[in-house]
């Protein structure tokens, strides 16, 4: 009779195998999927999983970055390098209207800026290319409203999420049926924690933007947060001179909105070590969540990732 083999996978292997299943399932069922690529560590892990899922071939979908034009310059060069090395198709979209209207993190509040340059930009790009599925690297441990979101998360034709009316999601049997104009956001990393992501980056030798590791960088103090002066568009106050500090970033986004932490951790295990002894949650460094309690849920309803 059949030989019985028992082998309990480690939790990291199990997360990996489930994520691959999710990516393959979405790629098989949707007509025109896209993988959103934010250049952050979660995106890097998701991209790595996508490359693995279809090895020795290439992922059967393009990658897309919604570029606000205010990303760290190191992020942009990393993006170009990633696309070149892997040979994946990389779409870059910028909200041209926002650009024309001079919507910047300095001229608008962080809420409005994010809504125009990120959320609207994303919707424009999804509409333009008629993507019916967009992979995102969000995790459920990031924020309370994310904890409730399905892995295959339905969006109406306005890209809106209805948290009260989500499709039941059972086993690993995903409902991918939509009408024209509607779409599904797929989150392969839903069940990963920040520690899982870091550990996987380390174990798999996944390249990440060097900004995650500590180095001397020019910063200024804004409301008690270190903001890096990444280019000469940063409006310095009169007489202000950036100082060199050993800093790194826990999350990456638009440089004027990303708070740095002072740190000496310049290897991944050291970063993990710092993270584990820290007492603040990850998104604390991301200024856009500060506005009000429950703000992420509101943003997500409007179509934000």
């Amino acid at each position, binding site marked *: 009779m*059949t030989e019985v*083999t028992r082998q*309990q996978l480690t939790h990291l292997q199990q997360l990996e195998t489930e994520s691959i299943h999710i990516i393959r399932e979405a790629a098989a069922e949707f007509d025109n999927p896209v993988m959103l690529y934010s250049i952050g560590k979660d995106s890097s892990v998701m991209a790595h999983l996508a490359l693995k899922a279809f090895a020795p071939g290439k992922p059967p979908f393009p990658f897309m970055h919604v570029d606000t034009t205010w990303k760290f310059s190191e992020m942009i060069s990393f993006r170009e390098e990633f696309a070149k090395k892997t040979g994946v198709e990389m779409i870059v979209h910028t909200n041209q209207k926002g650009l024309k209207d001079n919507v910047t993190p300095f001229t608008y509040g962080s809420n409005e800026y994010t809504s125009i340059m990120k959320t609207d930009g994303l919707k424009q790009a999804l509409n333009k290319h008629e993507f019916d599925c967009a992979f995102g690297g969000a995790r459920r441990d990031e924020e309370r409203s994310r904890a409730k979101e399905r892995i295959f998360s339905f969006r109406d034709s306005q890209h809106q999420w209805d948290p009260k009316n989500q499709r039941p999601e059972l086993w690993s049997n995903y409902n991918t049926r939509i009408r024209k104009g509607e779409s599904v956001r797929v989150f392969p990393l839903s069940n990963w924690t920040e520690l899982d992501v870091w*550990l996987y980056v380390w174990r798999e030798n996944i390249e990440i933007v060097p900004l995650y590791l500590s180095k001397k960088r020019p910063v200024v103090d804004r409301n008690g947060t270190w903001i890096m002066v990444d280019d000469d568009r940063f409006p310095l106050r009169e007489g202000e001179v950036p100082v060199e500090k050993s800093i790194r970033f826990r999350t990456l986004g638009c440089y004027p909105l990303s708070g740095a932490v002072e740190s000496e951790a310049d290897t991944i295990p050291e970063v993990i070590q710092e993270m*584990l002894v820290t007492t603040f949650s990850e998104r604390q460094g991301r200024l856009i969540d500060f506005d009000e309690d429950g703000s992420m849920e509101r943003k997500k309803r409007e179509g934000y990732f």
Partner: protein
Amino acid sequence: MGSDADLIKSDIKAYLDKYEMKELLRFVAVGSVDDGKSTLIGRLLHDTGMVYEDQLAAVKKASNIEGEEIDFSLLTDGLRAEREQGITIDVAYRFFSTDRRKFIIADTPGHVQYTRNMVTGASTANVGIILIDARLGVLQQSRRHAYIASLLGIPHLMVCVNKMDLVDYRKADFDAIVAEFAEFGKSLSFKDITFLPISALKGDNVVSNSPKTPWYDGPDVLNYLETIEITDDLNNEDFRFPVQSVLRPNLNYRGFCGQIASGSIKVGDTVLTLPSGKQSVVEGIDLLGEPIQKAVCPQSITIKLATEIDTSRGDMFVLPNNTPHVQRVIEAHLVWMSESELDSGKSYLLKHTTQTLREQVDEVSWKKDMDTLEDVPSDTLQLNDIGRVSITCTRGLFVDSYTKNRTTGSFILVDSITNNTVAAGMIIAESDDQDLEQLLKEARAGSALRPKTQVSARERFERLGQRGATIWLTGLPGSGRWALAYALERRLFDEGRTATVVDPTGSSMNGAISACKAATDAGLIAICAYTSFHKDERAKVRETVGSERTLEVFVDTDEALCRERRPNADFTGFERPEHPAVVVDLEDTHLRQATDMVLAALDAADQFKRPTR
């Protein structure tokens, strides 16, 4: 946690080595609204160090309670809507880890209207946790939750008798609940049921043994979760590999992608592919780009076969000496999850592993009375109902009993119009074994659906906003009934309805009636004024179309006027209708008013869909 915390500081790499090897355990926590489930989870997160200072600060701010106690439930209740309602309305997933394991919690609502969310959370769980209020004892709700957990195949059940602090930690109170629940538990199919006396609020027996219950020598909640054996809960015996996609990056590589649903496979094994029945040897297994010799469930792999076999998504690889059942007709437990009830006249989409096909629910054998947990007869299933059904499919499914295989034994039903997931199904596979020949015959057989319409009357009603009817106009020659017929068609069309005059030119009475029936079945409003002087003829219309769908209109225009208009017509033998729905005299009444009257009659007969609030 102590040892981990030290290790993190002294040797982070050693810690990461250890962390990486941890097992993953999924559990679902269910409870009634005030059982303290969210509090228990909040405390587990807090006491395992998973709550960051800023989160805690936000919760303290929001706690809004007097005293020093933190409202731990606020750590888990994420959405605005539920914060406003003060209850958990959807499944929330939480994560924490201890020295031994990493945990994923599905925190699900317990009140009856959200059974579907509990089912969602339970579908992947290794362990179910049910909370019982020590003061209230075993409520019907607890039995219901245990039944659902058992039906969804959760292997291990932990029953937390909570709020022990409110019964002064009395052993007798605990024992009474244990005895009652254990008796009930005999009817369920858990591998084991474990009872714990706890207080989530005070932290008794949650992450450490409580001194308040010296009479209890079992594990605390965390200890239980860390040690319960789960390796054997997977089906390691029966190799099932649903093909997800075919990978063909170049001419030299052809691989079949998928996640092993159960069992294991190694290079050199011979696999049988379904439905083709062809066999081939496994030439290679790639684990995400790396060749390996052997793979186990639930690994996602790519299989290469020695010979070229025409295989695509939806097919399944199995071993020739260990096959699933192949069935076009299946028996299953269904949990109905949609506001619209099960419509046995319509066909749904069924998604089972990687194949999606059409199905029809032929019969509901029974549904569970969720108060008594008894099987009661029913024609349909409504939101949150659980029942046993018989389902016919357009193709053979490769299935195992859900109790043996949670992947090949499960499916979802999707409404093809709304695209919502409307039901979760758990297959009860026939016990008699098929030999390979029978199996392949069934696998290649055509649709088992009876050749009949797959569009139900209710679906047409939803689409058209009208049920469909035949308006049959009777009257003397010259009464103006055809004029009224065409006026009605125009009027209904203008009102956004779908109507048609059945023009009888060249057809017989029977032909006209058949045409009316076909149009009515299609949901249209058929209008016909075929000459029908006799009662028998009109009875035939009602009989064929159905009296509830027939609206008889008597155009009772003055006979003298009719004769004046149609001097050469034959007026003999006209029998006046006895119970027409509408009587209208077109001498006195304007056509517009006449159409008003008919529309009112249709409305009164509940023809049209009411606008929703």
